[in-house]
């Protein structure tokens, strides 16, 4: 290890930069004082207030519903797309599909949101559906861009997976769909769960796209947070943020363990 002190300093600085704001956020969620930056003693007051905030709770419920439905649909779609890209060689339309899967990863949210909205408006004018914009339209928009992420994860795991595992199963008499169910799917399960969690958090996190495609009835959690933050800093938001952090961190730890297990599986299949 060369110049360890330099890299060590940069690493510590980097992690302090990454975690300082988050830690301060959590610390001040337990602040008694309404002034977010003045310490007035420990209190769980803001958590109690959060639990009685009807607006936040209903928005959170909507967001959770959308996020979990989105994750399931995105996983299915991403599995289809990732499998096509990783296993079917060069089929007609492969470049087209991989381009459409890659683009949402870097497309600015405002463009995605606006284009989706215009699609839904046009669909409504032509077919009369969707009648109102809200949960359904948000869900459709979220599935589209989070499926792109799932595709990337699934595809890369499939590419890393030893193809001879699938060939061996076929050689031993398993038909293609059985090979998929008995071999491919179990081996990439960790990647699928990671993709599910990612799709879930992406949806839970999205403000811009949801703001475009949502209607009067569909206020998601990020929208509530955004309008409240625009008005100023509030300890209730700190409490909410801490809860979300807790949720996500535990999710991450589970995923981490799964990925770890996958890595072990990967190693065996490579040997």
């Amino acid at each position: 290890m060369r110049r360890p002190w330099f890299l060590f300093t940069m690493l510590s600085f980097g992690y302090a930069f990454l975690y300082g704001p988050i830690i301060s956020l959590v610390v001040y969620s337990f602040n008694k004082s309404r002034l977010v930056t003045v310490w007035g003693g420990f209190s769980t007051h803001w958590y109690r207030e959060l639990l009685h905030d009807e607006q936040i709770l209903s928005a959170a419920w909507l967001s959770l519903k959308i996020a979990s439905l989105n994750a399931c649909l995105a996983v299915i779609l991403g599995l289809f797309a990732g499998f096509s890209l990783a296993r079917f060689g060069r089929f007609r339309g492969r470049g087209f599909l991989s381009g459409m899967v890659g683009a949402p990863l870097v497309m600015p949210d405002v463009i995605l949101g606006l284009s989706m909205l215009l699609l839904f408006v046009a669909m409504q004018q032509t077919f009369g559906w969707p009648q109102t914009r809200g949960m359904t339209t948000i869900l459709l928009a979220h599935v589209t861009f989070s499926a792109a992420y799932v595709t990337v994860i699934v595809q890369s795991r499939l590419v890393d997976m030893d193809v001879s595992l699938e060939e061996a199963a076929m050689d031993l008499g398993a038909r293609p769909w059985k090979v998929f169910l008995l071999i491919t799917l179990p081996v990439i399960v960790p990647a699928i769960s990671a993709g599910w969690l990612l799709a879930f958090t992406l949806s839970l996190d999205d403000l811009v796209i949801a703001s475009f495609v949502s209607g009067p009835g569909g206020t998601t959690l990020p929208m509530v947070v955004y309008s409240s933050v625009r008005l100023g800093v509030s300890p209730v938001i700190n409490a909410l943020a801490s809860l979300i952090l807790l949720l996500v961190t535990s999710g991450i730890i589970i995923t981490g363990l799964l990925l770890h297990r996958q890595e072990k599986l990967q190693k065996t299949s490579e040997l």
Partner: protein
Amino acid sequence: MAGGEKKGYEPWQDVNANPLVRIEGVSKTYGEICAVDDLSLDIYPGEFFSLLGSSGCGKTTLLRILAGFEQPTKGRIYIDDMDITTVPPYDRPVNMMFQSYALFPHMNVEANIGFGLRQEKLPRAEIRERVADALKLVKMEAFSRRKPDQLSGGQRQRVALARALVKRPKILLLDEPLGALDKKLREHTQFELVNIQEKLGITFIMVTHDQEEAMTMSTRMAVMNDGVIVQLGTPPYIYEYPATRFIAEFVGAANVLEGRVMGFFEDALSVYSEEYDCELLIHHPKPMDMGASVAVALRPEKVLITEKPVNVASAANTLSGIVAEIAYLGDISIYHIRTSGGKLIQVQLTNRNRMENPGPTWEQKVYLTWHSTSGVVLET
């Protein structure tokens, strides 16, 4: 040599024998690259057949065509006179042992071995019995509950073998079966594989780049290069009668002496090699044109090296030179002798004596002789 035990068994000599596998004019091209080029081959029941060649010679492609993972661009494949060219891998009476072993990481040893039987929807009791038999065959009974990542390389290899054998295929395909094992284990496993093959009577077709491995294990082997078979035969035949310079140098080591035909007496060819300034007398059944240029292969172990000139009737098949290099390998030593023409010749000497009486040493003048049956005229 394990192959030697079956001396009487030579179905390829019998015109009436029915081959188990018939490969007819098979080609496989990827774009403009031709991996297998119009290849025909018959393999008989009970054979241990090796496809030997360096990487990229098309041997693995041929194996994958037999397994059904690749479709030949041209040609047909028959097993037991049935055209299986377009039969998918899961319907072929053929199983494969993969180079990476391809053990399913999420299943334990027992489940891995039973996988193929479960695909056949056999009754549970029978599956259990056959899996137990297979475990016993490869001596892995104690590890049936282990996952592949808890096994050593050699154990994994056994499980992979058992998994492929438990389906009782007509043919077992082995893709570099010993490639991932270390040298000692490899030698041990070679014999074990041959024993299993003889016990079960299943036809083995093995792909390998290791000529020693191919020679030890197979009844016949095919040396491949650039998608075609350059020579086909039993290991001793290929070693003793290499057809071309490529085989002479790929299978074992060889000195290749180039020269011109000077005459033909009875069944021997007289050749003069200018580069070695040496007259060669070689057993050869067919007469050749005077003055035709030929290449003669001479295996290093067939040359006798002495410190004093040997009294022989003629000057043919003798050379002298000085020792340029000595490689001491323990059991044998390899000498590089610089002949008077300046060319090097490789000679092998068995170290029969201990250190106190070593053979010729550096810069020493030595004399080389060999028998007229030692050299082989190569095709050009």
